[in-house]
């Protein structure tokens, strides 16, 4: 506990320089979680549980209780991040503890069940827990790697500015299209009416939009602008230039969408499966004591 108290004083008054949640307070929660896991493994190795280690032993019940409390506390992060209020624990310290203690849950739960698995509610709870943890591990990786790429991609632009830029291009493109032939106008119209945010989850993750009307318009109008057969070339060239800008802006937006999708996709497993895990945990605990 002295370890916990040591950094208490400087917790809220630290320098403004960014420290990752992983390294928070000089890896304090990594150290705590590692020490806790090592202790759990050591006791598991030393304690002679007969006839074989299992959840149905004093050590099994002890680890099970710790694990269940840990799971509920880890799940509380979802509540904590929505409740911003002053206190001893910053959100970053919560996240840091959430990550490292969450990882130690692999040790706690595995030793709790003593490597006994089957087609039952107990193993279901374990599997759901592992899905939550592994999706969380993905989340850690994503939050470590992707933010840099995200800011590199968008440069100085904010999301609102990205939208404004596209809106501006579209308005100019709309005006530039007015004198064009019906055929070209229809092609550009499809681009104007296209919603760049309509792509499926898969399209967002893979950044693949094979039938993009803007890309098609860019290619078609670009070709027309280079063709001498078309009259009124200046108007077409102007539209082609605007389409070139639009395609470039879209690429930027879509890469941003992709990075955001990669940054968020794990939550679609982490959060609902956490609720499923809590349900399975309730069924697991009740069943154990019901058929005691």
């Amino acid at each position: 506990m002295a370890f916990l108290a040591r950094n208490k004083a400087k917790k809220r008054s630290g320098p403004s320089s960014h420290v990752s949640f992983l390294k928070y307070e000089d890896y304090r929660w990594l150290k705590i979680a590692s020490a806790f896991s090592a202790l759990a493994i050591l006791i598991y190795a030393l304690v002679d549980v007969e006839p074989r280690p299992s959840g149905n032993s004093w050590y099994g019940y002890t680890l099970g209780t710790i694990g269940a409390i840990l799971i509920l506390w880890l799940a509380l992060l979802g509540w904590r991040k929505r409740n911003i209020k002053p206190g001893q624990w910053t959100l970053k310290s919560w996240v840091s503890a959430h990550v490292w203690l969450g990882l130690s849950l692999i040790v706690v739960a595995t030793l709790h069940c003593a490597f006994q698995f089957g087609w039952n509610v107990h193993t279901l709870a374990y599997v759901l827990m592992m899905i939550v943890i592994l999706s969380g591990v993905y989340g850690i990786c994503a939050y470590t790697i992707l933010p840099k790429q995200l800011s590199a991609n968008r440069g100085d632009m904010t999301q609102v500015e990205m939208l404004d830029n596209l809106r501006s291009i579209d308005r100019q493109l709309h005006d530039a299209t007015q004198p064009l032939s019906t055929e070209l106008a229809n092609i550009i119209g499809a681009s104007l009416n296209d919603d760049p945010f309509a792509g499926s989850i898969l399209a967002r993750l893979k950044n693949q939009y094979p039938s993009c009307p803007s890309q098609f318009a860019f290619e078609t109008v670009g070709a027309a602008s280079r063709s001498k057969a078309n009259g009124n070339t200046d108007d077409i060239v102007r539209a082609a230039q605007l389409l070139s800008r639009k395609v470039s802006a879209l690429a930027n937006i879509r890469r941003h969408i992709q990075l955001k999708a990669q940054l968020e996709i794990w939550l679609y497993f982490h959060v609902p499966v956490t609720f499923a895990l809590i349900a399975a945990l309730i069924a697991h605990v009740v069943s154990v004591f019901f058929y005691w």
Partner: protein
Amino acid sequence: MIFTVHHVSFTNDGREIIRSKDYDQSTLSVGRGPGCDIALPDVSVPLDHARITANADGTLSVDAVAGAPFMANGRSVTSLKIGRGDGAVINFGSHEFIISRASEDVVIRVERKSAVADSSEAKDSKFVFSLGKVGGKMRLPAWILVVTILATLLVWPIWTWSNFHMAKSRADTFHADQTWSSGKLSLGHAALAKDCQACHVNAFESVRDSSCVACHTKVHDHADPKSLAGAKGEPNPFRQVLNATSRVFNRPENSCVDCHMEHEGAVSAPATPQRFCTDCHVGLSTRVKTTKILDVGDFAKDHPEFRPSIVTSPGEPPTIQRISLASKPKENSGLKFPHALHLSSTNGVARMAMTLPAYKGAGSAGLKCSDCHTASADKSTFVPVEMEKNCGACHSLGFGKVGNTVLTLRHGDVPQTIAQISALYRGIGPQNPAGTGFLQGRHVPGSSRPTPRFDVGSSSPDAAIRRVFSMGGACYECHQVVAPANPASLNFTIKPISVPKHYMPKAWFDHKAHDTSKCESCHTAPKSKSATDVLMPGIKSCQTCHAGATPEHDKVPSTCSMCHGYHFEDPLKAKPAAIAPKTTAAQKRQGTTTGKGRA
């Protein structure tokens, strides 16, 4: 006719702005082209799209110029006739034309109904860039999972439990509470896999002994419960905490399930941990002063020398005492049998064995243990030795011959033996009883010379009878004969053969598990010259291969339960019936054993 066109647009705060223009002409052109009367800045509208014509009869005609259709009153058309005084709603691309009449004039309200481009529409940047836009809310799948799991794995099993509460058995199909099973049941309980209620009776109540004894009706307590409580001693503080916790969770101490853990896999019921024995038996004498049970701990270090059941006096009943092998006890079973003589590979016994078809397999090595000691069907023990079957091949009881038929004394029946010999002499005369020549030719097994020891050919039946029961006689050879007090009497009796049913009454031994070893590696029979030798091996013999609970190199870890039971009845309480001379073969089989089953 005058066309009045109202161009409607909206400010950011939704206010309507109308710009109106009158056209005093009979036809209006509609299109994207700047030359059109009504020029629509709409990329989905052709440059020259349609004409609106006021006809002389007061009707209106709307006609597409290049065949590109437009929407009129919700239908796609290329031409529309609007009756005198009627109106219409027409859509050209994103623009809506509402045509109405004001006396003789036509009023057209033109309004753009959709944005110039998709991007022109207001977008919440936080939302559209997020995966949430297409992924939807996580709440719904979370709730579906929660409800599904709780319904199938909590509510359904509880419903199943309530349906079959106190039921004797259940149908051989899936039952929802099986999903709660933490592991397969042991082989002995495999049939109960779908009958959870057989053991788990009441909710939130640990399995009670009543569930166990419902089937295990013959299992009894290890000892008097009061003695057991006294034997246990004060638990250590840690155990006290565990016991207190168990009480809080409605789990009574000293229940069957304390030792017999289930759901540990489809194997034989796991051996009871040594702790359950040693908790009481280590230092038992200090807690239970009156006990006759020796203190015992781990097999490797703290186990006393074996104390087999030794018959010290044959009879009905025999005197059986448990005597430590350390004091080199002598057994008096009533039988005279030198193992060494019979297992020799060089003497007359060995030579005779070679001549007998039943022992041909013995070859030049003479008799083997297995020639007399036959393994039981499951190979774990041995069937009792029988005189006729196992000894009779050599030790013939033939005493006369009629034709080619050998007359044989009835083994185990003294009055019959006396009667048989008497009958031989009756009415024939003492000098030459029928077939007595055969008797005179009898010899000891393996001996080439006839010997008077077996010779019953005497001048009178009384002399012949006395000879059989006296030193050198056929009975006297193996049995302890009790001669009548009156020398003139023929009332001979034979002491019963008393062999303990179990040499080791408190333990069991499986010979099959040891069939890779030779008999003589444990039993020193080849060196035993007298039946009084106790051939049970001592603890050191076992300890050469068996470690205690702690594994040792090249040794078998052996906890108490490898040899000892907890609930088994003490075989000494059911002492073996002595083998009286008049008992039938069936009775003999019941009463005798070679002591191999529970050695």
